């Protein structure tokens, strides 16, 4: 199925390279929603995401000649779109990124948990509370160094296959897994912090 997609993409790419406007329009229809979704993830704002989407397709239009046809088109284009979104993000006052080491789980010398691990998972059973936590999770992802931010956004939010992400970011599968896990550990820890800040009495009541 994935291969069918890649084959169809490649055919479109060739038609665009040959100067067919209809082929470009079809490409826009095929990928605008995914590019917007990705841009929104980076920028967290509809207007900026729309502009980043335009930038991405403009780059596609100009640079399609440089696309190496032995590669998967969508991986190439995803990278283009990611750069378009980051370039807009850089124009805004930047968020400081965090040292994720500081928020990795803590263990005692013997390898067991050093502190209590609160179970806040019940919080997401309530739709409104879950949405609020999701919004916070978006902020926490944005704090991550880009190498971590990209993988968690692409995999856990966008649900892009791991092999495509590894290809887009030009990293190995083990590196992908390791980054994704650490990014998840970070976001989990941050969510724990905001979910456990309620006074005990209120939480119990």
């Amino acid at each position, binding site marked *: 199925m994935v291969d069918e997609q890649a084959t169809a993409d490649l055919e479109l790419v060739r038609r665009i390279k040959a100067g067919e406007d209809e082929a470009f*329009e079809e490409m826009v229809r095929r990928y605008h929603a995914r590019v917007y979704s990705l841009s929104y993830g980076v920028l967290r704002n509809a207007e900026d995401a729309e502009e980043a989407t335009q930038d991405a397709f403009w780059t596609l239009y100009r640079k399609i000649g440089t696309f190496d046809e032995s590669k998967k088109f969508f991986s190439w284009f995803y990278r283009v779109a990611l750069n378009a979104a980051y370039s807009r993000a850089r124009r805004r006052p930047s968020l400081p990124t965090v040292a994720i080491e500081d928020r990795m789980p803590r263990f005692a010398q013997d390898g*067991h*948990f050093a502190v209590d*691990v609160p*179970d806040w998972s019940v919080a*997401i059973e309530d739709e409104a509370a879950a949405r609020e936590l999701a919004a916070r999770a978006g902020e926490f992802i944005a704090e991550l160094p880009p190498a971590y931010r990209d993988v968690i956004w692409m995999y*856990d939010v966008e649900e892009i296959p791991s092999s495509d992400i590894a290809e887009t970011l030009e990293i190995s599968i083990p590196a992908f897994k390791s980054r994704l896990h650490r990014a998840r*550990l970070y976001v989990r820890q941050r969510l724990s912090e905001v979910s456990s800040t309620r006074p005990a009495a209120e939480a119990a009541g």
Partner: protein
Amino acid sequence: MSHDEKTCKQLILDCLFEYEDGSMPEEEHRDLQRHFEMCPPCMNFLTTYRATGKTLKMLKPREIPPALAETVMAFVRARSKTEKR
């Protein structure tokens, strides 16, 4: 639990990812499952790791602006004209 030699640290840092993504051999998975069942902190960690994943799925924008495809095409068309001059 007797032949489960993994510490919580190894379980969480080194094994949890594959425990969850389905790529772990069945026997190893079963051993680790026993650790989770016997160890409340690890179980809570697992539950909240999963809750984190579910929360992240909600972040995908649900609405794409109407007529976005047309806006993009108009943008590229207009820009390609000005850049050619």
